[in-house]
């Protein structure tokens, strides 16, 4: 794998929808490292790490890590200050 081989955060929707009922690829996230705020679909996703690693497109720090075991899933979000998820009123 070269350094170029990453995917877009849009592909996280499938794996994350096993855990959450919302489409997080449509959410906005803020990078804890550099403060950049943007669509989670715009993160750079590396699939050949153990699990999925999503990095900030601006500073390349890890914002999200998803590791799936046989009977549980770990979601590490310490690189994300917040997630803003669109929710319809009512």
């Amino acid at each position, binding site marked *: 794998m070269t350094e170029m081989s990453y995917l877009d955060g849009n*592909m996280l929707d499938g794996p994350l929808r096993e855990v959450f009922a919302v489409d997080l690829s*449509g959410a906005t996230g803020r990078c804890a490292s550099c403060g950049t705020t943007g669509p989670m*679909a715009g993160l750079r996703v590396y699939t050949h790490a153990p699990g999925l690693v999503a990095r900030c497109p601006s500073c390349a720090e890890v914002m999200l890590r998803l590791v799936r075991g046989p009977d549980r899933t770990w979601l590490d979000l310490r690189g994300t200050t917040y997630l803003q998820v669109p929710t319809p009123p009512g």
Partner: protein
Amino acid sequence: MSSPLAAPLTWRVARLVERRDETPTAQTLVLDVPGWPGHLPGQHVDVRLTAPDGYQAARSYSLAGPAEGERVALTVQRVPDGEVSPYLTDVWATGDPVEVRGPVGGWFVWRPAELAPVLLVAGGSGVVPLMAMVRARRAAGSRVPFRLIYSARTPADVIYADELRRRARDDHGLDVAYVYTRTAPKGWRGEPHRIGLADVNTHGWPAELEPLCYVCGPTGFVETVADLLVGLGHQPRRVRTERFGPTG
């Protein structure tokens, strides 16, 4: 669909109902997915294979067009030595099950209610979700102007070649331009080359029109085109990308 408060998604069992050759290395596979809820153009599914020893491999594949009831179409390019794609194109038989999760990916989508002009830039099999948008535009009777720039190795590698020729003639407001990287057809202007500024500038929309741009294909291709578009003055948030992986 990708309505925010839907329930978590689970894997469903889909069966192959039909396959069609698109090029010597790409096939359209029609799947029957019981309970399919419908989808937006640009969305994809995750496909999971399980070996007899329990080993699993999952990959993403774009939905190639609007669903027909519970039938959805994927177009898969065979990657030599790949874990999943050669199974789908060469081994998977009519009636056989695979697991499918979807539709997923609520960001790389085009909604027919959007009125901005659209630029689609495809590299290789990256044309699949963009074709879904072209097909949905026609199905919705949309008059939004679309331009597609499609980069392929040779004319024989062009997926949906006949349909694109027909649509470029019949779908008013759809323009299609090709870039060939290895061999160009007779009468094509210029030499084979990798997509560059002149192609995007000539066949795209001026940034002042604030088009929505969708770029899809191998990771390096998407990187190049997204940089060119931003360099031409397009707002980064109006350039949506879908990277398929290493090469293409």
